[in-house]
């Protein structure tokens, strides 16, 4: 199965191509958590319920065979979206369509459920230390009763381990005998064992060293090309996201603030928050440019600011931004990008500049 010809050269099939079928559609997805104190304490203190709006109305679609990434800082709700998408949380509002079918019905049918899998951030926590690797990898096969025959099951596990760059003999070992990168390979082998078409990857390389991260990202890209997988990729690392995505959504306080083709987002970021994020990344260019770090911090999602949630930190904020929540609107003259910003809508924003190239003077370093 692994040697099928590429269904899609990476980066060619563009998401918004007419007729492209969506593997996954998130429709006005919201998830609120009740973080109130216990009833008695609340009554004594005379305070109301406190609701944390982790995700508050997020919509996107992921065409088959492509990667959508969600980026944002901690607390922006990107991991909650991941969990909603695989059905680990039921949504407070909105729905998820998986291959055209409502997720709740899809998850009810094992045949549908095996089609989506998840890769978690921490390979030290997501593998059972008391199971042998071959049992870990075979778990989805057994859970879904995919291969009843023991010998065939073993052969499949060996094939999966080979596919992720491990040796079939590694199946006999326990997780502690592997390094972080190898463990993440085991997680990937486990995720692939039920022949899924859709993988949710929640910060899959954040716990890994950079040289190992490169190995895992390359592996994930190879697997996507070979198996035609669709990815929802969650990360806080913009450089990583650029390498793997077809489209990228930027989240802030439970909402999407900008959604664009990956290359467009980096060459012409529009939302002030997207720009601030790109500006904040320490780069290797060492131009000595004075970065202007975005001031302030992410507000609490329990009591988000009025109007546009980014307005207290935004250099372009005006009275309208403080009062009125901006809607995600398609940008004029930048097809495929939607952004939720009054300044962008009104044309008050400065012209876009590509990320990582700001004032790239002094290229003498290459001569060293």
């Amino acid at each position, binding site marked *: 199965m692994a040697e099928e010809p590429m269904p899609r050269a990476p980066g060619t099939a563009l998401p918004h191509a007419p007729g492209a079928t969506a593997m996954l559609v998130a429709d006005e997805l919201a998830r609120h958590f009740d973080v109130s104190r216990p009833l008695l304490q609340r009554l004594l203190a005379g305070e109301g319920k406190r609701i944390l709006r982790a995700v508050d109305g997020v919509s996107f679609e992921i065409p088959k065979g492509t990667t959508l990434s969600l980026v944002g800082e901690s607390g922006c709700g990107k991991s909650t979206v991941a969990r909603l998408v695989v059905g680990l949380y039921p949504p407070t509002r909105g729905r998820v369509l998986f291959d055209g079918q409502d997720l709740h019905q899809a998850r009810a049918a094992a045949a549908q459920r095996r089609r989506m899998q998840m890769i978690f951030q921490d390979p030290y926590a997501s593998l059972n230390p008391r199971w042998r690797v071959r049992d870990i990898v075979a778990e989805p096969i057994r859970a879904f009763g995919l291969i009843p025959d023991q010998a065939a099951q073993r052969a499949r596990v060996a094939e999966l381990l080979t596919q992720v760059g491990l040796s079939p003999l590694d199946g006999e070992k326990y997780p502690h005998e592997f390094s972080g990168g190898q463990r993440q390979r085991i997680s990937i082998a486990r995720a692939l064992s039920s022949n899924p078409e859709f993988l949710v990857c929640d910060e899959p390389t954040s716990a890994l060293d950079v040289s190992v991260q490169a190995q895992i990202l390359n592996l994930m890209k190879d697997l996507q090309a070979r198996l035609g997988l669709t990815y929802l990729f969650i990360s806080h690392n913009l450089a990583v996201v650029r390498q793997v995505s077809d489209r990228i959504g930027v989240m802030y306080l439970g909402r999407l603030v900008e959604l664009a083709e990956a290359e467009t987002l980096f060459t012409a970021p529009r939302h002030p928050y997207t720009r601030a994020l790109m500006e904040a990344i320490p780069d290797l260019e060492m131009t000595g440019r004075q*970065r202007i*770090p975005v001031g302030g911090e992410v507000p609490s999602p329990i009591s988000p600011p009025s109007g546009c949630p980014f307005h207290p930190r935004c250099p372009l904020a005006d009275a309208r931004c403080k009062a009125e929540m901006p809607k995600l609107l398609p940008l004029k003259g930048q097809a495929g990008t939607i952004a939720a910003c009054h300044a962008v809508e009104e044309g008050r924003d400065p012209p876009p500049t590509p990320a990582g190239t700001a004032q790239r003077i002094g290229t003498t370093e290459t001569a060293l």
Partner: protein
Amino acid sequence: MQPILPSPSRERDGAPILEVRDLRVEFPTRRGTLRALDGVSFSIMPGEVLGVVGESGAGKSMTGAAIIGLLEPPGRIAGGQILLHGRRIDNLRYEAMRKIRGKEIGAIFQDPLTTLNPLYTVGDQLVETMLTHLPIGAAEARKRAIGWLEMVGIPAAAQRVDSYPHEFSGGMRQRVVIALALCAEPRMVVADEPTTALDVSIQAQIIALLKTLAREKGMAMMLVTHDMGVIAETADRVAVMYAGRIAEIGPVRSVVKAPRHPYSEGLMASIPPLDRKVDHLAQIEGAMPRLSAIPPGCAFNPRCPHVFDRCRVERPELLETTATRAACWLYDPASAKQAPEALRHG
């Protein structure tokens, strides 16, 4: 606020604040002694930021812990010397070291929540530190505490000084930790992953702050991190560590832009670029060896694309290259005959 430290004096420029000579750290275990650091040497000048990078387990945090005298037992310094202002501190007893820590060496750790005591206000913690180490009274210490909070960018410092750590956000807490590390006016600061737990927008603020303080106060700083971007923005010189040794050390620009050691080269190449998309990221095959199984010769030899016979038997020391010093036989004229001609860029 009043200048707390004397401005970096020119006459000091010749003498390093910190000097580490041939440092060896060992962990005795039932299966034999593990060598976590082996022959690590470097020095840091006043006002200089030395970045220390490497992958997990390379020994970068271990080096920091050895310097501040907080190696976790049974780990111990088994050889070499650590000199602060020319005075040995590696052989001090616990009590003597406690006086130096905080006063002469400040430490900033990754997780601000575990560094701060949750039961005391941040003001109390700053005041206590200053009263312990500085010849000042309580009123003066409180005044300075507020000054420090202002200096690290905490708004409404006069009110916030009486807040508890949990009342601050992660970024603000890390600012408090920085104030706490610097308030006794150390000339040397060890910062171990000071921005790793922070979001990227906050990280940029903290980096800018550390850089400014190091320059202004003429402090020597050892900045341990796995984030090359942070190093590139902050450090003056960089040491790249691999398997308990320094693989390469030199000016930040040279190490980042034109690394000489094949490991640093692979490390730099594997960083995903922000300004373009690549089809295939460069990767170093394999993983760093465990301490219990460090290969003979150069520890990097099983993964090295340029390996030749000498690398497998003889361990390289740091050798001069054009811009940096690299522990690699490619740069030894004596191995010229063995190493393929094309590979000797030195």
